């Protein structure tokens, strides 16, 4: 039915099957859109956020999607700047994921603010001292870059490509992509960092506060590093997911292993830095403010020391070991465990840096604040996931996302 649009020679499921799948996800999407509409029309009272929990599920989702979308800038950086050419076989996917993640993040921010019509004040009346300003500028700029990076892929659609103008445009854009990738990497480094800075600069919140370099707290660097380290994990998770669903091999093992190896080493270095940071924070930063570490992990029903263990050991050391050791990395099951743990680890880190920050009492007579999101919050958080699934499915169906697909199919 839509065969004219499908990349040449690629095998895709019958259109009705595809359409049904999209419709199911679309229903979820609509549910999210409905919740989003409620939040815009009736206000943020639709959420379970409160004055103690000004930042909640959405901001976590925002930080998490940006972290896992970090695969785009890092893979781009490796391919275009460091010239690791094998990665061209996975860069398209990384870009699509990045695009989805960043557009979702922007959407979430637009829902999250109390006065969406005034959202542009962040640019127009910017306070340069605010990490959020930095986030907004870099985020939107990098989103533009991602759009530019995404366009050539769209232009490669079989039908569009037939138009000479688009064909040439696509070709020329590929030529200059290195510049965009470099710009993107730079911008991305900054806003990943500034997202880390968002929590790190809060010197009124001993749980989040970190010292740092110049105006940037250590979390700034840790966030950038962790996004670079864990982003590829998510790219790989999505690849594996696609391969599982389509029951096809889409990316060659050497590419996967290369990215996994790079990610592994990045995680290793990151987790070492994170451990050092944690120890310094436990030993110096927090005690200076009158807190012992266990103050942050006791007297409440949820946040125990387990969360620190889960983040550092399960989400850090374990994937680091698996991905750096060749034997483990090449074991398909272990690799899968490692990349999933990696994604879990970075998401947990973002959770801790948003929700636990809000939960920990600071005044000696204050109490822990725990919160459960409302359905509207859950729906609007799922909304980008549904949107992502739809967009990535469309991209997979109609665009040559996996350049090795044909080759792998043929060899099979």
């Amino acid at each position: 039915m839509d065969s004219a649009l499908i990349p040449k020679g690629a095998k895709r499921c019958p259109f009705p099957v595809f359409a049904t799948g999209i419709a199911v996800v679309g229903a979820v999407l609509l549910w999210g859109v409905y919740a989003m509409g409620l939040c815009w029309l009736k206000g943020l009272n639709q959420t379970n956020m409160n004055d103690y929990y000004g930042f909640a599920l959405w901001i976590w989702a925002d930080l998490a999607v940006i972290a896992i979308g970090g695969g785009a800038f890092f893979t781009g950086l490796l391919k275009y700047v460091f010239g690791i050419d094998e990665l061209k076989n996975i860069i398209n996917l990384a870009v699509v994921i990045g695009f989805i993640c960043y557009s979702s993040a922007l959407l979430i921010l637009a829902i999250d603010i109390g006065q969406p019509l005034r959202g542009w004040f962040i640019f127009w009346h910017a306070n340069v001292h605010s990490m959020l300003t930095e986030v907004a500028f870099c985020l939107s700029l990098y989103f533009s870059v991602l759009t530019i990076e995404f366009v050539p892929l769209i232009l490669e659609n079989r039908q569009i490509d037939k138009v000479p103008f688009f064909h040439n445009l696509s070709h020329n854009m590929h030529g200059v992509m290195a510049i965009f990738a470099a710009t993107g990497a730079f911008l991305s480094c900054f806003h990943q960092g500034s997202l880390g800075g968002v929590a790190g600069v809060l010197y009124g919140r001993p749980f989040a506060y970190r010292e740092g370099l110049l105006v940037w707290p250590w979390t700034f660097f840790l966030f950038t590093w962790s996004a670079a380290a864990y982003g590829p994990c998510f790219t790989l998770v999505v690849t594996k997911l696609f391969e599982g669903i389509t029951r096809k091999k889409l990316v060659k093992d050497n590419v996967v292993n290369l990215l996994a190896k790079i990610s592994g080493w990045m995680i290793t270095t990151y987790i070492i830095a994170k451990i050092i940071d944690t120890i310094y924070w436990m030993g110096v930063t927090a005690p200076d403010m009158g807190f012992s570490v266990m103050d942050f992990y006791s007297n409440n029903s949820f946040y125990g020391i387990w969360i620190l263990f889960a983040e550092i050991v399960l989400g850090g050391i374990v994937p680091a070991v698996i991905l750096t050791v060749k034997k483990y990395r090449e074991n398909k099951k272990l690799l899968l465990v490692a990349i999933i743990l990696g994604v879990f680890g970075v998401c947990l880190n973002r959770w801790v840096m948003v929700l636990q920050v809000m939960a920990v009492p600071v005044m000696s007579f204050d109490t822990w604040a725990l919160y459960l999101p409302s359905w509207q919050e859950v729906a609007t958080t799922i909304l980008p996931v549904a949107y992502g699934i739809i967009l990535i499915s469309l991209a997979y169906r109609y665009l040559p996302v996996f350049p090795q697909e044909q080759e792998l199919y043929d060899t099979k």
Partner: protein
Amino acid sequence: MTQDNHGKKYKFGMVIDLDKCTGCGSCMVACMSENNVPFKEDETNKKDSITWMRVFKLTNGKPFPETDICYMPRPCMHCGGKGDHGHSPCVSVCPATATDYGHDTGIVSQIYTRCFGCRYCMGACPYHARYFNWWDPKWPDGMEEYLSPNVSPRMRGVVEKCSFCYHRYQAARDKAYHEERRDEIEESEYQTACTQACPAGAITFGDLNNPDHEVCKFVNPDPHQCGKPRNPKAFRLLERLQTNPKVYYISEREWVRKAGDNYRDGEWGKEIHSSDGNSHK
């Protein structure tokens, strides 16, 4: 932005005598009434209840009959921030300059029409002094008639907080200008609504830079240590975070003073030197 508060024209601050405070709640209501603070049918979820001035109830945690309680009124602290330069925790994070530090008064503003409701400042404030308008403000039929024109009612979706009744300062300045005093304002001409209402006389308000003002006499702030009180019975909330609040508390009771900050085991009572060279007690 790196000006110091010391030697500036005014540095308005507040001193609250916790031994005189009876927890009666007049300050809270005076504030709500003065500042057009709305109310909802259910205000028992204190995490979603706009109270620019909130009275916390502290207990010493001891069993009967050794128990003691203390009420602690908490307005906005109008922090001077690290080094007292005006980089208050909230001011420095606001992405749209909707809250700023008035170097001529030491007052942290909140401009409702500029605020777009990102709530970053609320996360930054360790005192929970900032409140978000989760709901449209609503008054029962006719009750809007009592709203004051001196403070603009807030719309849904923005953050609000105590302003040290800035409009009273504006009014006092208007009068001073009118009387050709430029803007020289007497201590009694600018007092906050809570100070004025407190039936126990527990709240004092004035210029911390002016040694003739009661607030200055009560706490004797040390200009070389960002206004740290030299009166041993006085303290500021969370002094160790270096937020440098302009609200001081006084109590004869040691446990109350201790509750004003966080101390690890054995730290209380000792001179504490933090790694950045600042000393605390």
